[in-house]
Protein backbone atom coordinates (compact mmCIF):
# COMPACT_ATOMS: atom_id res chain seq x y z
CA UNK A 1 0.00 0.00 0.00
CA UNK A 2 1.54 3.27 -1.09
CA UNK A 3 -1.37 5.52 -0.34
CA UNK A 4 -0.87 7.83 2.62
CA UNK A 5 -2.81 6.82 5.69
CA UNK A 6 -5.34 9.24 7.16
CA UNK A 7 -7.11 8.97 10.50
CA UNK A 8 -9.72 11.28 11.94
CA UNK A 9 -9.90 10.82 15.67
CA UNK A 10 -12.60 12.45 17.77
CA UNK A 11 -12.19 13.96 21.22
CA UNK A 12 -14.89 16.07 22.86
CA UNK A 13 -16.35 17.14 19.54
CA UNK A 14 -19.72 17.71 17.92
CA UNK A 15 -18.76 16.22 14.52
CA UNK A 16 -19.13 19.66 12.98
CA UNK A 17 -15.55 19.37 11.82
CA UNK A 18 -16.49 16.22 9.89
CA UNK A 19 -19.08 18.27 8.09
CA UNK A 20 -16.44 20.73 7.04
CA UNK A 21 -14.67 17.83 5.35
CA UNK A 22 -17.87 16.88 3.57
CA UNK A 23 -18.19 20.49 2.46
CA UNK A 24 -15.27 19.80 0.16
CA UNK A 25 -18.02 18.46 -2.10
CA UNK A 26 -16.80 16.31 -4.97
CA UNK A 27 -13.23 16.94 -3.92
CA UNK A 28 -13.84 14.74 -0.92
CA UNK A 29 -14.02 11.78 -3.29
CA UNK A 30 -10.62 12.72 -4.67
CA UNK A 31 -9.26 12.93 -1.18
CA UNK A 32 -10.78 9.61 -0.17
CA UNK A 33 -9.40 7.97 -3.31
CA UNK A 34 -5.96 9.32 -2.57
CA UNK A 35 -5.74 8.10 1.00
CA UNK A 36 -6.15 5.00 3.02
CA UNK A 37 -8.54 5.66 5.89
CA UNK A 38 -7.18 4.16 9.08
CA UNK A 39 -9.88 5.37 11.44
CA UNK A 40 -12.85 7.69 11.10
CA UNK A 41 -15.76 6.68 13.31
CA UNK A 42 -18.14 9.22 11.79
CA UNK A 43 -17.82 7.83 8.29
CA UNK A 44 -15.91 4.55 8.17
CA UNK A 45 -16.65 1.21 9.75
CA UNK A 46 -13.33 0.71 11.46
CA UNK A 47 -13.02 -0.11 15.11
CA UNK A 48 -10.70 1.22 17.74
CA UNK A 49 -8.81 -2.12 17.80
CA UNK A 50 -8.02 -1.66 14.12
CA UNK A 51 -6.37 1.63 14.98
CA UNK A 52 -4.54 0.20 17.97
CA UNK A 53 -3.15 -2.67 15.88
CA UNK A 54 -1.35 -0.28 13.51
CA UNK A 55 2.34 0.31 14.28
CA UNK A 56 3.21 3.53 16.10
CA UNK A 57 3.97 6.50 13.87
CA UNK A 58 2.50 4.76 10.85
CA UNK A 59 -0.38 7.12 10.08
CA UNK A 60 0.80 9.91 7.84
CA UNK A 61 -1.86 12.36 8.87
CA UNK A 62 -4.07 12.36 11.93
CA UNK A 63 -6.75 14.99 12.37
CA UNK A 64 -7.78 15.23 16.00
CA UNK A 65 -11.15 16.86 16.51
CA UNK A 66 -12.51 18.22 19.74
CA UNK A 67 -11.22 19.21 23.14
CA UNK A 68 -9.86 16.90 25.82
CA UNK A 69 -12.42 16.79 28.61
CA UNK A 70 -12.40 13.31 30.15
CA UNK A 71 -10.08 10.36 30.61
CA UNK A 72 -11.34 8.72 27.44
CA UNK A 73 -10.64 11.70 25.18
CA UNK A 74 -7.29 12.08 26.93
CA UNK A 75 -6.51 8.48 26.05
CA UNK A 76 -7.60 9.10 22.45
CA UNK A 77 -5.34 12.12 22.25
CA UNK A 78 -2.37 10.07 23.43
CA UNK A 79 -3.27 7.28 21.02
CA UNK A 80 -3.51 9.82 18.19
CA UNK A 81 -0.05 11.12 19.05
CA UNK A 82 1.46 7.63 19.17
CA UNK A 83 0.08 6.56 15.82
CA UNK A 84 0.60 9.84 13.99
CA UNK A 85 3.48 10.95 11.87
CA UNK A 86 1.78 14.34 11.60
CA UNK A 87 -0.86 15.37 14.10
CA UNK A 88 -3.15 18.24 13.28
CA UNK A 89 -5.33 19.88 15.92
CA UNK A 90 -8.39 20.12 13.73
CA UNK A 91 -10.96 22.77 14.63
CA UNK A 92 -11.28 25.34 17.38
CA UNK A 93 -11.85 22.77 20.15
CA UNK A 94 -8.67 20.83 19.50
CA UNK A 95 -6.71 24.07 19.03
CA UNK A 96 -7.97 26.11 21.98
CA UNK A 97 -10.56 24.10 23.89
CA UNK A 98 -13.43 25.66 22.00
CA UNK A 99 -17.01 25.67 23.21
CA UNK A 100 -16.53 22.59 25.46
CA UNK A 101 -13.72 24.61 27.06
CA UNK A 102 -16.31 26.96 28.52
CA UNK A 103 -16.91 24.18 31.06
CA UNK A 104 -13.85 25.70 32.74
CA UNK A 105 -16.03 28.43 34.20
CA UNK A 106 -17.51 25.81 36.51
CA UNK A 107 -16.15 22.94 38.57
CA UNK A 108 -16.43 19.30 37.64
CA UNK A 109 -18.75 18.57 40.58
CA UNK A 110 -20.79 21.67 39.90
CA UNK A 111 -21.39 20.63 36.30
CA UNK A 112 -22.47 17.12 37.25
CA UNK A 113 -24.77 18.34 40.01
CA UNK A 114 -26.32 20.93 37.74
CA UNK A 115 -26.88 18.47 34.91
CA UNK A 116 -28.09 15.49 36.93
CA UNK A 117 -29.73 16.96 40.03
CA UNK A 118 -30.42 20.65 39.98
CA UNK A 119 -31.64 21.40 36.49
CA UNK A 120 -35.39 22.08 36.40
CA UNK A 121 -36.22 19.37 33.92
CA UNK A 122 -34.47 16.62 35.89
CA UNK A 123 -36.15 14.21 38.29
CA UNK A 124 -33.47 12.41 40.26
CA UNK A 125 -34.74 11.73 43.75
CA UNK A 126 -31.83 9.58 44.86
CA UNK A 127 -29.44 12.22 43.59
CA UNK A 128 -27.51 9.74 41.45
CA UNK A 129 -24.50 11.19 39.68
CA UNK A 130 -22.53 9.29 37.04
CA UNK A 131 -19.30 7.92 38.38
CA UNK A 132 -16.33 6.15 36.89
CA UNK A 133 -17.15 2.70 38.19
CA UNK A 134 -20.51 1.12 38.93
CA UNK A 135 -21.03 -2.41 40.25
CA UNK A 136 -24.32 -3.97 39.35
CA UNK A 137 -25.20 -7.66 39.97
CA UNK A 138 -21.56 -8.60 39.96
CA UNK A 139 -20.85 -6.72 36.76
CA UNK A 140 -18.48 -3.78 36.70
CA UNK A 141 -19.42 -0.92 34.43
CA UNK A 142 -17.09 1.94 33.69
CA UNK A 143 -17.69 5.22 31.97
CA UNK A 144 -15.23 8.01 31.19
CA UNK A 145 -14.58 10.43 34.00
CA UNK A 146 -14.45 14.19 33.63
CA UNK A 147 -11.12 15.93 34.05
CA UNK A 148 -10.96 18.80 36.52
CA UNK A 149 -10.41 21.18 33.60
CA UNK A 150 -11.04 20.93 29.88
CA UNK A 151 -7.83 21.11 27.85
CA UNK A 152 -6.77 21.85 24.34
CA UNK A 153 -5.01 19.05 22.48
CA UNK A 154 -1.56 20.62 22.83
CA UNK A 155 -1.97 20.74 26.60
CA UNK A 156 -2.02 16.94 26.57
CA UNK A 157 0.30 15.91 23.73
CA UNK A 158 2.65 17.59 21.28
CA UNK A 159 0.83 18.92 18.25
CA UNK A 160 2.41 19.40 14.83
CA UNK A 161 -0.09 21.67 13.10
CA UNK A 162 -3.12 23.71 13.98
CA UNK A 163 -6.17 24.18 11.81
CA UNK A 164 -8.56 26.39 13.76
CA UNK A 165 -12.13 27.42 13.04
CA UNK A 166 -15.57 26.28 14.04
CA UNK A 167 -15.80 24.50 11.70
CA UNK A 168 -12.43 24.89 9.95
CA UNK A 169 -12.84 26.97 6.78
CA UNK A 170 -13.02 24.92 3.63
CA UNK A 171 -10.17 26.75 1.96
CA UNK A 172 -7.82 25.94 4.83
CA UNK A 173 -8.93 22.32 5.01
CA UNK A 174 -8.15 21.95 1.31
CA UNK A 175 -4.81 23.69 1.80
CA UNK A 176 -3.82 21.44 4.68
CA UNK A 177 -4.92 18.22 2.98
CA UNK A 178 -3.21 19.15 -0.27
CA UNK A 179 -0.01 19.97 1.58
CA UNK A 180 -0.11 16.74 3.55
CA UNK A 181 -0.94 14.51 0.61
CA UNK A 182 1.71 16.03 -1.60
CA UNK A 183 4.27 15.78 1.19
CA UNK A 184 4.77 19.53 1.24
CA UNK A 185 3.79 20.33 4.79
CA UNK A 186 5.03 23.64 6.22
CA UNK A 187 7.37 23.74 9.24
CA UNK A 188 5.99 22.10 12.38
CA UNK A 189 3.98 24.35 14.62
CA UNK A 190 2.37 26.16 11.69
CA UNK A 191 -1.17 27.37 12.14
CA UNK A 192 -3.17 27.11 8.95
CA UNK A 193 -4.74 30.52 8.58
CA UNK A 194 -3.75 34.03 7.76
CA UNK A 195 -1.06 36.00 9.56
CA UNK A 196 -3.47 38.88 10.01
CA UNK A 197 -6.73 39.46 11.82
CA UNK A 198 -10.27 38.86 10.62
CA UNK A 199 -10.60 42.64 10.17
CA UNK A 200 -7.98 42.46 7.42
CA UNK A 201 -10.20 40.07 5.48
CA UNK A 202 -13.34 42.03 6.23
CA UNK A 203 -14.65 44.30 3.47
CA UNK A 204 -16.72 46.49 5.75
CA UNK A 205 -15.94 50.19 5.98
CA UNK A 206 -14.25 51.34 9.12
CA UNK A 207 -14.50 55.02 10.00
CA UNK A 208 -12.49 55.06 13.22
CA UNK A 209 -15.53 56.11 15.16
CA UNK A 210 -16.03 55.70 18.88
CA UNK A 211 -19.11 53.96 20.18
CA UNK A 212 -21.01 54.94 23.28
CA UNK A 213 -23.55 52.16 23.33
CA UNK A 214 -23.09 48.42 23.05
CA UNK A 215 -25.99 46.74 21.35
CA UNK A 216 -27.06 43.13 21.36
CA UNK A 217 -27.40 41.59 17.96
CA UNK A 218 -31.20 41.39 18.13
CA UNK A 219 -31.57 45.09 18.92
CA UNK A 220 -30.82 46.38 15.45
CA UNK A 221 -30.56 45.48 11.81
CA UNK A 222 -26.94 46.33 11.07
CA UNK A 223 -25.93 48.47 8.14
CA UNK A 224 -24.45 45.95 5.66
CA UNK A 225 -21.62 48.26 4.61
CA UNK A 226 -20.24 49.63 7.87
CA UNK A 227 -18.04 47.95 10.45
CA UNK A 228 -20.21 46.02 12.90
CA UNK A 229 -18.06 47.01 15.84
CA UNK A 230 -18.57 50.68 15.04
CA UNK A 231 -22.31 50.07 14.99
CA UNK A 232 -22.10 48.95 18.60
CA UNK A 233 -22.08 45.19 18.13
CA UNK A 234 -19.21 43.35 19.80
CA UNK A 235 -17.34 41.71 16.94
CA UNK A 236 -14.28 39.63 17.81
CA UNK A 237 -12.63 40.44 14.46
CA UNK A 238 -9.78 42.59 15.81
CA UNK A 239 -8.63 39.86 18.21
CA UNK A 240 -9.13 36.89 15.92
CA UNK A 241 -6.87 35.26 13.35
CA UNK A 242 -8.01 35.66 9.79
CA UNK A 243 -8.04 33.08 7.04
CA UNK A 244 -11.77 32.49 7.12
CA UNK A 245 -12.37 35.31 4.59
CA UNK A 246 -14.48 36.98 7.29
CA UNK A 247 -17.46 34.86 6.35
CA UNK A 248 -19.52 35.89 9.37
CA UNK A 249 -19.17 39.69 9.10
CA UNK A 250 -19.80 39.37 5.36
CA UNK A 251 -23.29 38.08 6.09
CA UNK A 252 -23.97 40.66 8.83
CA UNK A 253 -23.08 38.38 11.73
CA UNK A 254 -20.40 39.53 14.18
CA UNK A 255 -17.23 37.45 14.47
CA UNK A 256 -17.25 35.19 17.52
CA UNK A 257 -13.58 34.39 17.51
CA UNK A 258 -13.44 30.75 16.40
CA UNK A 259 -10.12 31.16 14.60
CA UNK A 260 -8.43 31.87 17.91
CA UNK A 261 -5.98 34.60 18.87
CA UNK A 262 -4.19 36.66 16.24
CA UNK A 263 -0.63 35.53 15.45
CA UNK A 264 1.79 36.59 18.14
CA UNK A 265 -0.86 37.22 20.76
CA UNK A 266 -1.12 34.76 23.61
CA UNK A 267 -4.48 35.64 24.92
CA UNK A 268 -7.45 36.36 22.72
CA UNK A 269 -9.48 37.89 25.52
CA UNK A 270 -6.80 40.34 26.60
CA UNK A 271 -6.36 41.41 23.00
CA UNK A 272 -10.09 41.92 22.62
CA UNK A 273 -10.24 43.82 25.88
CA UNK A 274 -7.66 46.27 24.50
CA UNK A 275 -9.44 46.60 21.18
CA UNK A 276 -12.79 47.17 22.82
CA UNK A 277 -11.40 49.77 25.20
CA UNK A 278 -10.10 51.70 22.20
CA UNK A 279 -13.35 51.62 20.29
CA UNK A 280 -15.79 52.26 23.11
CA UNK A 281 -15.68 55.76 24.54
CA UNK A 282 -16.24 59.40 23.81
CA UNK A 283 -14.37 61.37 21.17
CA UNK A 284 -12.93 63.58 23.88
CA UNK A 285 -12.54 62.09 27.33
CA UNK A 286 -10.88 65.01 29.05
CA UNK A 287 -12.95 66.01 32.02
CA UNK A 288 -15.12 62.91 31.88
CA UNK A 289 -15.49 61.41 35.34
CA UNK A 290 -14.38 57.89 36.24
CA UNK A 291 -17.99 57.07 37.04
CA UNK A 292 -19.14 57.93 33.53
CA UNK A 293 -16.36 55.91 31.98
CA UNK A 294 -17.23 53.01 34.23
CA UNK A 295 -20.85 53.10 33.11
CA UNK A 296 -19.76 53.21 29.50
CA UNK A 297 -17.33 50.33 29.58
CA UNK A 298 -19.28 48.07 31.91
CA UNK A 299 -21.96 47.76 29.30
CA UNK A 300 -19.96 44.66 28.46
CA UNK A 301 -21.82 42.29 30.73
CA UNK A 302 -19.81 39.12 30.35
CA UNK A 303 -16.28 39.83 29.17
CA UNK A 304 -15.08 36.32 29.97
CA UNK A 305 -17.82 34.52 28.05
CA UNK A 306 -17.64 36.92 25.12
CA UNK A 307 -13.88 37.30 24.74
CA UNK A 308 -12.89 33.73 25.51
CA UNK A 309 -15.79 31.96 23.85
CA UNK A 310 -13.48 29.57 22.00
CA UNK A 311 -10.19 29.94 23.80
CA UNK A 312 -10.66 29.74 27.57
CA UNK A 313 -8.50 26.62 28.20
CA UNK A 314 -5.73 28.09 26.05
CA UNK A 315 -5.85 31.50 27.74
CA UNK A 316 -3.31 32.64 30.33
CA UNK A 317 -5.70 31.93 33.21
CA UNK A 318 -6.96 28.69 31.66
CA UNK A 319 -10.05 28.51 33.81
CA UNK A 320 -12.10 30.24 36.47
CA UNK A 321 -10.44 29.63 39.83
CA UNK A 322 -12.01 28.81 43.15
CA UNK A 323 -15.44 27.88 41.80
CA UNK A 324 -17.70 25.80 43.95
CA UNK A 325 -20.63 25.41 41.56
Amino acid sequence: MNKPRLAIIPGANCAGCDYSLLDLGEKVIEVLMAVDIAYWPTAADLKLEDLEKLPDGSIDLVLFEGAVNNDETEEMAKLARRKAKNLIAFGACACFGGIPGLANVASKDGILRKAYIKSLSTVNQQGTIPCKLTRLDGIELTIPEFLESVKSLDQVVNVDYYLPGCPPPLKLVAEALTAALSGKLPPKGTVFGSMKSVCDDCKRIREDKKITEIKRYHQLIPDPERCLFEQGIICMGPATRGGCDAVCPTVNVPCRGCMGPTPGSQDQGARMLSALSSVIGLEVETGVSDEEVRKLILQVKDPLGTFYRYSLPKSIMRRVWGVRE
Partner: protein
Amino acid sequence: MVENFEPNIVVFACNWCSYAGMDLAGTSRIQYPHNLKVIRVMCSGRINPVYILEAFANGADGVLVTGCHPGDCHYISGNYKTRKRIILLERLLEQFGIEKERLRLEWVSASEGEKFANIAKEFVEQIRKLGPNHIAKELRKEVAVV
Protein backbone atom coordinates in the same frame (compact mmCIF):
# COMPACT_ATOMS: atom_id res chain seq x y z
CA MET B 1 -4.25 36.21 57.00
CA VAL B 2 -1.05 34.29 56.45
CA GLU B 3 1.75 34.84 58.98
CA ASN B 4 4.81 36.64 57.68
CA PHE B 5 3.24 37.12 54.31
CA GLU B 6 5.17 39.63 52.24
CA PRO B 7 3.13 40.70 49.21
CA ASN B 8 4.80 40.50 45.85
CA ILE B 9 3.65 43.50 43.88
CA VAL B 10 4.27 44.47 40.29
CA VAL B 11 4.11 48.16 39.47
CA PHE B 12 3.84 49.46 35.95
CA ALA B 13 4.97 53.06 35.74
CA CYS B 14 4.77 55.40 32.79
CA ASN B 15 8.06 56.95 31.82
CA TRP B 16 6.93 60.55 31.81
CA CYS B 17 5.03 61.06 35.05
CA SER B 18 4.82 58.13 37.41
CA TYR B 19 8.35 56.80 37.09
CA ALA B 20 9.63 60.31 37.66
CA GLY B 21 7.29 60.54 40.65
CA MET B 22 8.80 57.38 42.08
CA ASP B 23 12.25 58.78 41.44
CA LEU B 24 11.26 61.87 43.36
CA ALA B 25 10.13 59.72 46.27
CA GLY B 26 13.58 58.16 46.24
CA THR B 27 15.60 61.35 45.90
CA SER B 28 13.46 62.97 48.59
CA ARG B 29 14.31 60.01 50.84
CA ILE B 30 10.68 59.12 51.40
CA GLN B 31 10.37 55.58 52.69
CA TYR B 32 8.04 53.19 50.99
CA PRO B 33 7.64 49.40 51.17
CA HIS B 34 10.15 47.19 49.41
CA ASN B 35 7.48 44.86 48.05
CA LEU B 36 7.21 46.68 44.75
CA LYS B 37 8.82 45.51 41.55
CA VAL B 38 8.72 48.44 39.21
CA ILE B 39 8.53 48.05 35.46
CA ARG B 40 8.94 51.21 33.45
CA VAL B 41 6.91 51.53 30.26
CA MET B 42 6.71 54.43 27.88
CA CYS B 43 3.03 55.05 28.55
CA SER B 44 0.35 53.50 30.74
CA GLY B 45 -1.53 52.98 27.48
CA ARG B 46 1.26 50.65 26.41
CA ILE B 47 0.42 48.17 29.17
CA ASN B 48 -1.10 45.23 27.42
CA PRO B 49 -3.70 43.47 29.61
CA VAL B 50 -1.65 40.34 28.88
CA TYR B 51 1.13 41.73 31.11
CA ILE B 52 -1.27 42.04 34.00
CA LEU B 53 -2.78 38.60 33.47
CA GLU B 54 0.72 37.15 33.15
CA ALA B 55 1.75 38.87 36.36
CA PHE B 56 -1.12 37.26 38.25
CA ALA B 57 -0.54 33.91 36.57
CA ASN B 58 3.11 34.02 37.63
CA GLY B 59 2.50 34.77 41.27
CA ALA B 60 2.03 38.52 41.69
CA ASP B 61 -0.19 39.21 44.69
CA GLY B 62 -1.09 42.64 43.38
CA VAL B 63 -0.59 44.81 40.33
CA LEU B 64 -0.40 48.58 40.54
CA VAL B 65 -0.72 50.53 37.32
CA THR B 66 0.33 54.14 37.41
CA GLY B 67 0.11 56.82 34.76
CA CYS B 68 -0.13 60.53 34.13
CA HIS B 69 -3.18 62.38 35.39
CA PRO B 70 -6.08 62.62 32.92
CA GLY B 71 -5.28 65.34 30.45
CA ASP B 72 -1.55 65.11 31.08
CA CYS B 73 -0.64 62.10 28.94
CA HIS B 74 2.54 62.63 26.97
CA TYR B 75 0.84 60.84 24.07
CA ILE B 76 -2.45 62.72 24.55
CA SER B 77 -4.84 59.84 25.17
CA GLY B 78 -2.90 56.79 26.42
CA ASN B 79 -4.12 57.07 29.97
CA TYR B 80 -7.75 57.33 28.85
CA LYS B 81 -7.39 53.98 27.15
CA THR B 82 -5.77 52.56 30.27
CA ARG B 83 -8.60 53.81 32.43
CA LYS B 84 -11.15 51.92 30.33
CA ARG B 85 -9.02 48.81 30.10
CA ILE B 86 -8.44 48.59 33.82
CA ILE B 87 -12.13 48.93 34.63
CA LEU B 88 -12.99 46.15 32.21
CA LEU B 89 -10.03 44.07 33.34
CA GLU B 90 -11.19 44.32 36.96
CA ARG B 91 -14.50 42.88 35.86
CA LEU B 92 -12.70 40.12 33.95
CA LEU B 93 -10.43 39.31 36.90
CA GLU B 94 -13.46 38.93 39.13
CA GLN B 95 -14.90 36.49 36.62
CA PHE B 96 -11.64 34.54 36.66
CA GLY B 97 -11.85 34.34 40.45
CA ILE B 98 -9.23 36.98 41.31
CA GLU B 99 -10.24 39.71 43.74
CA LYS B 100 -10.48 42.96 41.83
CA GLU B 101 -8.80 44.74 44.76
CA ARG B 102 -5.56 43.13 43.66
CA LEU B 103 -5.47 45.46 40.66
CA ARG B 104 -5.27 49.18 41.12
CA LEU B 105 -4.91 52.18 38.85
CA GLU B 106 -3.49 55.42 40.20
CA TRP B 107 -2.48 58.69 38.62
CA VAL B 108 0.92 59.84 39.84
CA SER B 109 2.56 62.94 38.40
CA ALA B 110 6.28 63.66 38.38
CA SER B 111 5.91 65.93 41.40
CA GLU B 112 3.93 63.49 43.52
CA GLY B 113 6.66 61.49 45.22
CA GLU B 114 4.89 61.60 48.52
CA LYS B 115 1.58 60.62 47.00
CA PHE B 116 3.27 57.63 45.39
CA ALA B 117 4.82 56.54 48.67
CA ASN B 118 1.44 56.74 50.37
CA ILE B 119 -0.27 54.78 47.61
CA ALA B 120 2.45 52.14 47.83
CA LYS B 121 2.06 51.78 51.60
CA GLU B 122 -1.70 51.64 51.38
CA PHE B 123 -1.70 49.13 48.53
CA VAL B 124 0.79 46.82 50.23
CA GLU B 125 -1.38 46.85 53.37
CA GLN B 126 -4.47 46.12 51.30
CA ILE B 127 -2.80 43.13 49.65
CA ARG B 128 -1.46 41.94 52.99
CA LYS B 129 -5.04 41.81 54.23
CA LEU B 130 -6.20 39.95 51.11
CA GLY B 131 -3.47 37.35 51.53
CA PRO B 132 -1.44 35.53 48.90
CA ASN B 133 -2.66 34.93 45.38
CA HIS B 134 -3.05 31.15 45.16
CA ILE B 135 -3.80 30.99 41.48
CA ALA B 136 -0.19 30.86 40.31
CA LYS B 137 0.43 27.72 42.33
CA GLU B 138 -2.71 26.02 41.11
CA LEU B 139 -1.98 27.06 37.53
CA ARG B 140 1.43 25.43 37.72
CA LYS B 141 -0.23 22.20 38.82
CA GLU B 142 -2.54 22.46 35.82
CA VAL B 143 0.22 22.86 33.29
CA ALA B 144 0.38 19.67 31.32
CA VAL B 145 3.32 17.31 31.13
CA VAL B 146 4.01 17.95 27.43
